[in-house]
């Protein structure tokens, strides 16, 4: 049991457990699983101006989801700190070779220190990844009306055509970034 908590889970165990989030939230209170709405709720909570998009009762709409988000942070602490896996991620050798060729040197944790450290903020690459990457995730998720959880998991689970179109968009963007833009950014 203790091993199960420390070891990484294989995809065929993790996938079904992840999928259970959808029925758990529906049965808990008829809630639809989607993380990025919380970014809107947080904007609405801090909002003092007159942007219509943020003028709604964020407390009654978003309290449950913000609580869920607090749980996500706690789950990250338990799964990634308390019961952290001490070994590097078992990546495909071809991915490691590609990334080494692009100059990535640290393969120890969940993210490479080369890009994800406070000192990386002093470099163009670090700024692009942490600031531009985050900005596009926030902007794109709201523009598309959902992120990986809301569209790829919830939306596809409910057979929504809109979500399928959004997921195709996710992949167009992801492939362009990975194969065309990232080599330029890292060079």
């Amino acid at each position, binding site marked *: 049991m203790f091993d199960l908590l420390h070891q990484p889970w294989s995809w065929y165990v*993790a996938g079904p457990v992840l999928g259970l989030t959808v029925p758990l939230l529906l049965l808990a209170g008829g809630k639809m699983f989607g993380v990025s709405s919380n970014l809107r709720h947080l904007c609405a909570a801090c909002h003092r101006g007159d942007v219509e998009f943020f003028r709604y009762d964020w407390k009654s709409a978003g309290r*449950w989801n913000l609580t869920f988000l607090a749980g996500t*942070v706690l789950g990250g602490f338990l799964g990634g700190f308390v019961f952290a896996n001490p070994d590097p991620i078992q990546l495909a050798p071809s991915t490691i070779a590609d990334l080494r060729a692009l100059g990535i040197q640290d393969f120890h944790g969940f993210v490479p220190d080369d890009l994800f450290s406070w000192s990386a903020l002093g470099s163009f690459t670090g700024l692009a990844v*942490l600031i*531009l990457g*985050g900005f596009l995730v926030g902007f794109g998720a*709201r523009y*598309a009306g959902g992120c990986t959880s809301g569209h790829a*998991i919830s939306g596809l689970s409910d057979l929504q055509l809109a979500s399928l179109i959004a997921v195709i968009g996710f992949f167009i963007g*992801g492939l362009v970034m990975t194969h065309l833009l990232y080599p330029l950014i890292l060079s």
Partner: protein
Amino acid sequence: MNFTEYLKYLTIGTLFGFVLMKSEVVSWFRIQEMFRFDSIHMYGIIGLAVIIGMLSVQIIKRWQLKDMHGNPISIPPKDSSQVPRYILGGTLFGIGWALLGACPGPIFALLGSGITVMAVPVLSALAGTYAYGLLRDRLPH
């Protein structure tokens, strides 16, 4: 919401965050691997999550199950006529997802795991969300 309600959503969120870490989907490396088609890992996880989600949504709809409070469960459909927003918004999101190597759930889970610099993408994602709110009327939907 009373204490039990908060505890309920906190628990489901904790399970979600825990699985995100244990499945390594929070990893920038796994996202790189996925967009290079080098491993089944991410596709297997998302695919199986969707299958479980789909089966449970079908069961909930067919049997007209009620939630814990006894209220009927209704799932509002998304407006699939707004094609530009899904393609354009989706593509911008995908560029950000591959660049940062994390989508909203993983950003927060990584922050919880002690990678404090993830506070920066939390703030920039909030800025991106705010920018969308400002520009919404001028964007094609």
